């Protein structure tokens, strides 16, 4: 079971992911709707995994990833993107993200990504 911090400016996306994680037996340690809150919450909660949307206003997902990795080089971050954002996903993986998910979410795909990142 993982403690997961869910970061996405979309409430619908956060709720969808939270429901999948709960069905998979994982704990949602917290949630954030923007990159700044995400970095603060990460340092407070020290979750096992962070799911992090790439496209967010003000502090985008890539910048948020860099700040989390700077605070904790062992952080396990799973990037979340829409289709067609391959370049940004690649950049995120090169910046330390462990895995990625594409919206809209498919339950089995999400849970497999969480399992793979936990096992690594």
């Amino acid at each position, binding site marked *: 079971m993982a403690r997961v911090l869910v970061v996405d400016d*979309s*409430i*619908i*996306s956060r709720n969808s992911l939270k429901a999948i994680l709960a069905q998979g037996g994982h704990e949602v340690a917290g949630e954030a709707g923007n990159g700044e809150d995400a970095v603060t919450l990460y340092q407070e909660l020290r979750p096992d995994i962070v799911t992090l949307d790439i*496209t*967010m*206003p003000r502090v*985008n997902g890539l910048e948020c990833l860099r700040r989390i990795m700077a605070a904790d080089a062992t952080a396990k971050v799973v990037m979340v993107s*829409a*289709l*067609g*954002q*391959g*370049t*940004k996903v690649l950049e995120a993986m090169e910046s330390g993200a462990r895995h990625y998910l*594409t*919206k*809209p979410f*498919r339950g*089995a795909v999400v849970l497999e990504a969480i399992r793979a990142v936990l096992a690594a």
Partner: protein
Amino acid sequence: MFSQFFGQYLLERQHISPDQFRLVMALRDFSKAKLGFLAINAGYMTAAQVDDIHASQTVADKRFGEIALEEGALDQNQLETLLTQQAAMHVSLGQTLVDEGMMELADLERILAEYKRDCGLSESEFAALKSGETDVLAESLGKMPGLGPDNVYGGYLALFARNLVRFVDDNIKLERARLVEEAPYDLLVYQALLGRQNLFTGLAGPEGATGKFAICYGKLESVNRELTVDALGEFLNVQNGLFVTRLSNRYLEMDLGVPGHHCGGRLRTAGVMYAVPVVLPFGYVELIVATDEPAVF
């Protein structure tokens, strides 16, 4: 789609009342059967397999049958059997009107001829509408010259129509894309596509219709302004993500901007801007497509 187009015409010309319109559309909906349901009924697929394919459609612009074949959930013979069943079960709007005693057959024939004359569609567009070739019709109605190369931006409306049918409501009526200098809105949710040439895309509409759009797309029980903006933004993300992926397959790279929204104003452009009205059972929304981000007033 023909039922929605013709049904709206009957309503506008007062050949049927709003209550009769709702009744015939409901009866028509009852007679339709989605392929997934038929596949479960026939014992070809499980509900979990059907759900999985519906989920796949959100990340791939493909029909249910196509994905089922690719994933081995159905074989060709099974798919053809189901498609034949589906066609046989479908009851046309016209037949429903006559069967329910709302119209005589001779009147239906006369009104159909009037509709063909008045609908503003070309011969080929009308033929596509009658034969259910949604893609052909949407491609024709969605021609937006001045937006950019047709081999790049063509097909945006057809993709939009497919996504509406898949994820919001399959009773849609598209109107022809109109070149506009100004577009008023109650609520506008937008997203820019960023590349060598940018594209501004948006969904605009009155609060009621955009709220119901959000309920249908997000499978929500109710909405407020925040959830409506969220759901429309997520729909645009899916639409534009699929579009950008298709462009990428042609070695044209574009990126998705952050969705945003405005309330109660007008868009004005010095560039090229199109508005495409879409009539849904619960109201209308407009798809806005422009070459540059319009000024907001």
